[in-house]
């Protein structure tokens, strides 16, 4: 924070503080969030489409909003340095994209295992199969079981709010886990959108390591014999059991986060027209594309509902079952070839032949509403369901 900023409590900053309209890119929305997040340290390594946001965070450091900042040598080193900085008891931030995410992969489960409330933004893009810098969110599939919580922003407003909310939920003593805040690269990072912002003079309270379920490595806590990492130095039942129970506790902490996510995100998912026989379930910018498809389908006399999934980890299984009670078809449009979201949804629902993993685009293709509508019409023609 800067001396001219006023520390306010999280609820005031997020819910009550008056907001003003701005017209900014998603990258700028990231910087606006970090400006108000009272960050101790950020570390960066450039990659498209993340770079601009971390340039802006660097400028925040130069202006005194962030206390330390440097450009590291690669993403594994970034995530390792962020891990170290968080171990020493401060609030940290970084961001990356696609290949950077994969380069750093080994560190993400470490963050969760070390119970660190690290917030990392992921500006999703293609990875090398074949090389692509274009929007695609396959990297989310690869992070699903790393123990980190995962929020998926639809637009700049979500990106701004979710980053601040991520710190608040991550730092709850009964959670204390990392959060990845994901946005589809370019579509969110490089386009301007209306974003409502509270005053830049306000900032979150600073992080207190005393709220952590594990002591910080700051040499302020006796009795100075701390190996926080799960025990692996003995091959015996006790160390296996210690490791396994620690692992279970990481997963349990993520479950305990649901109550906070419900409060701050106003639910892990949002539903429109739950009575519709045709539902779309999507996350990220695919949600916006569904909104337009739904409007046009309605003009054609076909009513469809929408489930916007905001939290991917923890995953809203129960809420999904509730929201799809009436659905005959559940379309899951995605910006990746693997279809990880459709798989997640199928695993959560009964009668999961209702789930249609279409349309899917990747390699930088856009998802015009027409192909969403086509997917629906094709299914309707080949079925005897009456809508």
């Amino acid at each position, binding site marked *: 924070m800067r001396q001219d900023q006023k520390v306010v409590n999280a609820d005031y900053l997020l819910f009550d503080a008056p907001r003003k309209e701005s017209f900014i890119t998603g990258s700028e929305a990231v910087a606006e969030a970090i400006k108000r997040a009272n960050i*101790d*340290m950020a*570390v960066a390594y450039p990659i498209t489409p993340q770079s601009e946001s971390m340039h802006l965070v660097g400028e925040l450091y130069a202006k005194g909003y962030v*206390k*330390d900042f*440097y450009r*590291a*040598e*690669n993403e*594994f*080193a*970034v995530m*390792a*340095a*962020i*891990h*170290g*900085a*968080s*171990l*020493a*008891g*401060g609030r*940290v931030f970084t961001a990356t994209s696609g290949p950077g995410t994969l380069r750093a992969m*080994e*560190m993400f489960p*470490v963050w969760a295992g*070390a119970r660190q409330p690290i917030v990392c933004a992921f500006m999703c893009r293609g990875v090398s199969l074949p090389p692509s810098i274009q929007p695609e969110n396959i990297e989310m599939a690869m992070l699903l079981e790393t123990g980190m919580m995962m929020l998926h922003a639809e637009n700049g407003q979500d990106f701004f709010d979710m980053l601040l909310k991520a710190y608040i939920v991550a730092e709850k003593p009964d959670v204390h886990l990392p959060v990845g805040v994901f946005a589809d690269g370019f579509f969110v990072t490089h386009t301007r959108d209306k974003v409502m912002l509270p005053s830049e003079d306000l900032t979150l309270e600073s992080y207190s390591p005393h709220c952590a379920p594990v002591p910080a*490595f*700051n*040499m*302020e*806590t*006796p*009795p*100075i*014999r*701390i*190996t*926080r*990492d799960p*025990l*692996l*130095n*003995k091959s015996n039942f006790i160390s296996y059991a210690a490791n396994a129970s620690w692992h279970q506790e990481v997963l349990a902490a993520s479950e305990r986060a649901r109550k906070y996510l419900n409060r701050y995100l106003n639910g892990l998912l949002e539903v429109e027209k739950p009575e519709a026989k045709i539902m779309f379930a999507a996350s990220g910018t695919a949600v916006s594309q569904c909104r337009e498809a739904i409007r046009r389908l309605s003009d054609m006399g076909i009513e469809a509902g929408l489930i916007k999934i905001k939290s991917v980890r923890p995953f809203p299984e129960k809420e999904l079952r509730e929201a799809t009670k009436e659905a005959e078809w559940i379309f899951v449009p995605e910006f990746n070839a693997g279809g990880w979201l459709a798989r997640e949804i199928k695993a959560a629902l009964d009668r999961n032949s209702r789930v249609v993993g279409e349309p899917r685009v990747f390699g930088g293709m856009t998802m015009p509403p027409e192909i969403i509508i086509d997917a629906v019409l094709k299914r309707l023609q080949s079925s005897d369901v009456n809508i």
Partner: protein
Amino acid sequence: MKTRVITPADVFEKYLPEEYRDLVDRGPYLENHGVAGLGTTKELVEQHPHCAGCGVSLGIRLAAASLPSPEDTIIVGTPGCSFFALAQTAVNYSNTAFGNQNAVASGIKRMLQVRHPDKNKDVIVMVGDGGIADIGLDLTLHSWFRREKITTIMLDNEVYGNTGGQESGMSKIGQKLNMAPTGKKFPKVPVYDMAKTAGCAYTARVTVASPYKLEKAVRKAVLIARNVGPTYVQIYTPCPTNMKFPSNGTINVAKEAEKEYYSFDEYFTKEAEQYLAEQNALKNSQGIDEK
């Protein structure tokens, strides 16, 4: 942290484990006994599961006894044999992914400076030769390029001990090892010389056969890192298990190496020399010589 945090309140003292009280009363937290005190004072490393005669565990024991402020120290490790003793050492210890140690240490050191700017808090990397010379070489060098104020200590057993005796970048040329079935094809990675050009303010090369030299080197390295810039100490810690010499031969193997290729060496930048001279001028009045 110092006295206030370490010393138990009278009413609680009897509830603390005897071991902790020992560390406070007869150990290195409040008073430095150094290598000379080994055997008569409470040690930071009490027991370890290393092989008999392990040079790595001896290196750790000597280095731990040499820390100027163990109560204000965090050691950053990485997978490898060193983990087994360090995880049981009475110093804060962090160990995660193989080769990430100097980046983790950079993050820790910077955050400690942000949050405790008025206090000396020492960040020391202590890991194996493979961890530095192979998988972690880029992160090590970059921490030196950036002039991070951390001490890096290599426990060089010239092999991947922990995974079963494979070739490491620090193995000697010609050495037959697992994954080097016809002998290693290139010489030891010159990490020691690289440290000098990469920005270290102080470097020392030493073996476990010279405990007092080792003590002085580690002590200087930590103090110079605290005040001037990155420092590097490379300790030869021979491994009887993989090098197949008798477990009572460790010191002799190290002594031979000192004669052949592991001679004692020290290097200071001008700033480091100047800092030590200032310290000595200060300490001489108290009868202690730093160099």
